[in-house]
């Protein structure tokens, strides 16, 4: 494999020059991040896997059109979000959730402890239930709102970067987040301490 310090831009240039192994390195580098993005939008592992394969295939086919006006990271996120939204529109109502494994580290997370250890019996949710509720709440959001919540709250991408990915203003990103959080608050009321 390539040197981990090799900049994305160099790997992109080598791919454009016909070096397929450089693109392999980009796949290794970006697949975990893009998996998180697509998985949290589809809530289904098999769909995420298929979609992620198609995303990288499309990126490879279109890489000569990438001119470096944005970062490769932004470009890949744009392709991923657009393809995920198109996929969700087609999938429509035949959605089935397949929850991924939860890393054991979650049980030590103060947020998890806080959410599941309240004296209120309604809060006595176990890990599986909390995961299910979170996913159900996410799936009730519109595709566009879910994309913003995934990128900002789950992946920690700043507003400005999300705006570039979605090609909207930062104000639109903030407004979508506000509206999505308000909806999620209603769905997740039982896990919110008063």
């Amino acid at each position: 494999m390539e040197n981990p310090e090799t900049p994305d831009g160099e790997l992109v240039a080598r791919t454009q020059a016909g070096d397929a192994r450089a693109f392999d390195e980009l796949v290794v580098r970006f697949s975990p991040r893009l998996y998180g993005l697509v998985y949290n939008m589809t809530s289904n592992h098999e769909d995420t896997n298929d979609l992620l394969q198609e995303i990288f295939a499309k990126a490879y086919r279109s890489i000569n059109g990438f001119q470096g006006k944005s970062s490769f990271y932004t470009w890949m996120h744009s392709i991923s979000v657009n393809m995920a939204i198109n996929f969700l529109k087609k999938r429509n109502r035949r959605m089935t959730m397949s929850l991924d494994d939860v890393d054991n580290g979650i049980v030590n997370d103060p947020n998890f402890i806080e959410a599941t250890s309240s004296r209120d019996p309604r809060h006595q949710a176990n890990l599986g239930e909390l995961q299910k509720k979170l996913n159900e709440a996410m799936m009730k959001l519109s595709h566009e709102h879910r994309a913003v919540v995934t990128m900002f709250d789950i992946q920690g991408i700043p507003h400005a970067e999300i705006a570039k990915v979605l090609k909207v203003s930062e104000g639109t990103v903030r407004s979508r987040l506000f509206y999505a959080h308000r909806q999620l608050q209603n769905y997740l009321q039982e896990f919110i301490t008063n």
Partner: protein
Amino acid sequence: MEHEEEIQKLLRLKRYEQPPPGYFDDFLHEFQCRQRAEIIRRPLWAVVWDRFSSIAPSFHVPQMAYASIVALALVASAVILARPGSGPATVASAGAQAFSLSPSNPVTIGETLPVAFTPTGSPSVHYVLPNRPVSYAPSRSF
């Protein structure tokens, strides 16, 4: 918002949802296999279209250029079709006139000689052009 932070904390827990162990190790291999299969399966027009659409943004054509070209083509088609005497029937009659062998417009081929007459004297007569050599150079023998 009052509970904004709590919602954000709950959402952050979704970071712990991960694919099965070893998933990312196999992902690249699966990608390479799919790519090879796709190359074999894809029709030529799809490959050409992909190549075109990937390089199209680098053409640096002015904004709305494609729309202008399409609009110009439509206008040109409309003008050609609307021009008097350019309909299909007119073209056919013009063609008929151009190839007419009527006595007023005879076609002269040159000096011809009859080579055969039918016994019944029917007008079916065959002619050949005079056998004039175009060159006196000796013919090649192989």
